[in-house]
């Protein structure tokens, strides 16, 4: 009789494979960094006007959107389409371990993104934070990242076809970036500006910028944090509920 392998052994194997997969896709990580780094290079006047925390918050938010919408959702859709999940599911492993391993890799990507933005901000624009600011920045980046991973999960939950997931996530990405950035800067008018402020884009950016400066955390930041957590929970729960392991799953 075969024994059930230990969950830790299974998880270690899955994580090693997912990390290797991510490593072999390191070009995609460079793509994640392009927009934030370009902004850090080109927004010198915005840094003077609105401060380093605002720009760092914007850069990390854009990176988080890319990870959740362009990275995570597309890789899950591809693997589902190719039957990679089905092959794993016929093995004696708990289903949660497949997704948890992938999410851990995405969390590592978030930490790498945040570190890169901090380092680039320091060297290109001389933006420096307190030790507490950096630490809280990592924590809020993970919380904010959960919102976009949740949205990515919701897209692959709602849409079965990998090509449609790809085009939809690109569209949502474009809307988030354009409406978020221009709405926040007031270019799209006051009502849109308010909407953006309390949207996933605005709340994530708000908590990130507030976490960088210990004195700037106020009631508005707490509200943004609660909304961010709410978004993360709702999107993730819906995404998990709607998710199917196979594009042709019936019944």
């Amino acid at each position, binding site marked *: 009789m075969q024994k*059930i392998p230990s969950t830790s052994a299974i998880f*270690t*194997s899955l994580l*090693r494979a997912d990390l290797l997969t991510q490593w072999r896709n390191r070009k995609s990580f460079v793509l994640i960094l392009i927009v934030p780094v370009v902004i850090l290079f080109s927004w010198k006047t915005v840094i003077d006007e609105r401060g380093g925390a605002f720009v760092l918050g914007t850069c990390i938010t854009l990176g988080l959107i890319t990870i959740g919408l362009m990275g995570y959702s597309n890789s899950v859709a591809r693997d589902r389409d190719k039957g990679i999940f089905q*092959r794993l599911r*016929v*093995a004696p492993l708990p289903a949660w371990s497949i997704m948890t391993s992938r999410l851990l890799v995405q969390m590592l990507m978030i930490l790498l993104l945040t570190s890169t933005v901090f380092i680039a901000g320091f060297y290109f624009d001389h933006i420096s934070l307190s030790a507490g600011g950096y630490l809280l920045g990592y924590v809020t980046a993970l919380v904010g990242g959960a919102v976009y991973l949740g949205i990515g999960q919701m897209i692959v939950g709602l849409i079965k076809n990998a090509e449609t997931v790809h085009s939809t996530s690109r569209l949502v990405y474009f809307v988030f970036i354009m409406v978020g950035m221009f709405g926040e800067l007031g270019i799209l008018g006051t009502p849109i500006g308010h909407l953006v402020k309390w949207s996933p884009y605005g709340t994530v950016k708000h908590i990130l910028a507030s976490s960088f400066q210990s004195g700037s955390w106020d009631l508005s930041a707490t509200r943004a944090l609660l909304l961010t957590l709410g978004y993360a929970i709702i999107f993730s729960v819906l995404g998990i509920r709607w998710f199917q392991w196979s594009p042709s799953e019936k019944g």
Partner: protein
Amino acid sequence: MNNPSDAVLEVIDLNVKYGDFQAVKNVSFSVRAGEIFGLLGPNGAGKTSSLSAVEGLLVPESGRIRVAGFDVKTHARHARANMGVQLQATSFQPELNVAEIIRLFAGIYGVILTREKLDAILENINLREAGAKKFGQLSGGQQQRVSLVIALIHEPKLVLLDEPTTGLDPQARRQLWERIEALRNQGHGILLTTHSMEEAESVCDRVAIIDHGQVISTDTPQTLIDSHRNDPAVIRASRKGRITLEDVFIGLTGNQVRV
């Protein structure tokens, strides 16, 4: 002949429904240790649904499935630990090479794989040089060999092979048949689905013909041929002056093309 208590797979009164459509109706069969059991049927007959229920990929409406004595519903992980699966369209992460894929599944099945053991596995399937290649860079036959090695990495009692020779050239197909027969001789129970009657006749010890979700006949290929030799539908289906398993299959399931 093995006795029924040697069964490594028991499927009892299996029913699978998709909405209002009943894909599998009261299907029962068993696979014994050291036996190759073929599940034959036209497209949409219920083969893949039955197999998916055994694999635990879908929840049946009713019925009981036991793998090596473990109920797939109540002891799913125990049941899966005792089965090795080669899916119809197996795919692995395209970024990983063959050695990394084998290592991944060895870890998942709790098998300790040393460098020497991995080399021996690759050598055994004539893929020593292909360890560093990506799965997608292999030929169809090589991909099938890797998939089979992964299905067998934990020495399961039951091996499920879903149309394993589809798309293979005659040499690769013959080679795979030999491997499947070697597995049988080692005592593994093998459940094989196939569209190829030649394959079923050549390698299967027993076959079940399934159509419209129901098992319509179960026996050894030769007994099926002998017992249906005089059926008018089977004689009408015969093309070469002698009755083959394919003629029996056409006679029992009809000659209409299924989509």
